[in-house]
């Protein structure tokens, strides 16, 4: 549950520290939407099935990541993200159901985010004005995103393979692992926000 609130905490920290930095507005919106939806999902879990919220979270994850990376990756990613979104929506609605976890769709989302991250690294490597990596804030944000995406990709692939509804302990451990990666991502982002302000 901590990781869900941490999204909102990170958004609050970013909002306070970077209120005059427009280039981080997509990241802040992403954190707010993620935090809001995740907290809402927790509340809904006491009433019944909340998995459709996780379908929505997956969509926010994909489209949000695309907007965050938009100016830092090549144009062809527009098409790749569009196709991944179509695949995700079709699989959510027609293949699985919006009332269950779309593991394959979510794994595809994380794979696309890893792709965005690697494309960013490639562009950074080819850029003409190289800086020390620890002086490039977006490098850390990218690291946070692809580390989380790789952990989440592993979790969703595993959940697609194993029927977690019949194996409670595996299900709980997998969610803890997923939350752990989420916390790692948010802590790195918090560090980056503080770093940006210190460097100002």
């Amino acid at each position, binding site marked *: 549950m901590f990781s869900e609130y941490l999204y909102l905490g990170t958004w609050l920290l970013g909002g306070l520290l970077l209120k005059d930095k427009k280039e981080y507005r997509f990241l802040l919106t992403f954190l707010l939407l993620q935090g809001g939806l995740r907290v809402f999902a927790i509340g809904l879990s006491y009433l019944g099935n909340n998995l459709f919220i996780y379908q929505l979270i997956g969509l926010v994850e994909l489209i949000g990541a695309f907007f965050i990376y938009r100016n830092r990756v090549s144009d062809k990613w527009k098409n790749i993200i569009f196709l991944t979104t179509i695949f995700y929506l079709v699989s959510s609605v027609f293949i699985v159901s919006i009332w269950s976890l779309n593991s394959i769709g979510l794994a595809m989302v994380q794979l696309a985010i890893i792709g965005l991250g*690697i494309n960013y690294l490639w562009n*950074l490597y080819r850029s003409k004005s*190289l800086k020390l990596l620890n002086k490039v804030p977006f490098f850390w944000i990218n690291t946070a995103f692809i580390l989380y995406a790789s952990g989440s990709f592993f979790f969703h692939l595993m959940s697609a393979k194993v029927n977690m509804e019949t194996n409670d302990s595996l299900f709980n451990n997998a969610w803890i692992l997923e939350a752990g990666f989420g916390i790692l991502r948010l802590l790195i982002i918090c560090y980056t926000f503080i770093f940006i302000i210190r460097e100002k």
Partner: protein
Amino acid sequence: MFLVVSTLVFFAYKYQRKLIKERAETQEIQELLKSEELKSAYALLEGQDKERERIAQDLHDRMGGQLSTINMYLDLLEKEQLNPKQQELVLNVKKATDSTIEEVRNTAHDLSNSTLNYYGLSKAIEHLCGVLRDSKKIAVQFHSSVQQDIPSLIARDIYSVIQELVTNTIRHAEAKEIRIELTSIEDEVNFIYEDNGKGFDPNTVKSGIGTKNIELRVQKHNGNVVIESNERIGTSYIIEIPLNYER
């Protein structure tokens, strides 16, 4: 997950290597530019020296020659039968011409460093000190223990540096005394120049053209300048120049 972490580590490694390589290249370019700038500055100094030589030669040969001719005519005129008033005028013109010839000779001498060319560095500095002593503006001490021949290019630059330092002392230092010590040990010539003037802050005055010229002339021969300046004890320059350095 392992693949992503490996990619990140590999990227960081490659990126840092590229960064180090790029920085080394930038530094190399900057050093090259600096050396090109120095070359241009040295060329400018050499050009100035040549121009001075040419002006000195012209002064000595043309103007000196013309003035000597005027003097000759005045000698002839003096032998003519003139009234006392005219004789007095001729005498005055002759005196003025003699004094102008002397001035032109001295200026040409100062410009061309002829003593330096004919008698060597120590004698040239000794001559310069003599002129300064005669001016009664400042007391000068000069000691030389040079044991071998100093290449003419180095000698010319050392002489120019000393001229520059003397000019600075007279113009700005309000000093009463200058001390110059010239020594050469094995393959190095060094000299100490001291005055007891009011001193200056080397960090702020360092960028002045005079000081820059001094540094350029010394660096041209891969030499080294140490400046110490203090309000109570004045200013001292310690300059070391290797004799076997080839540009």
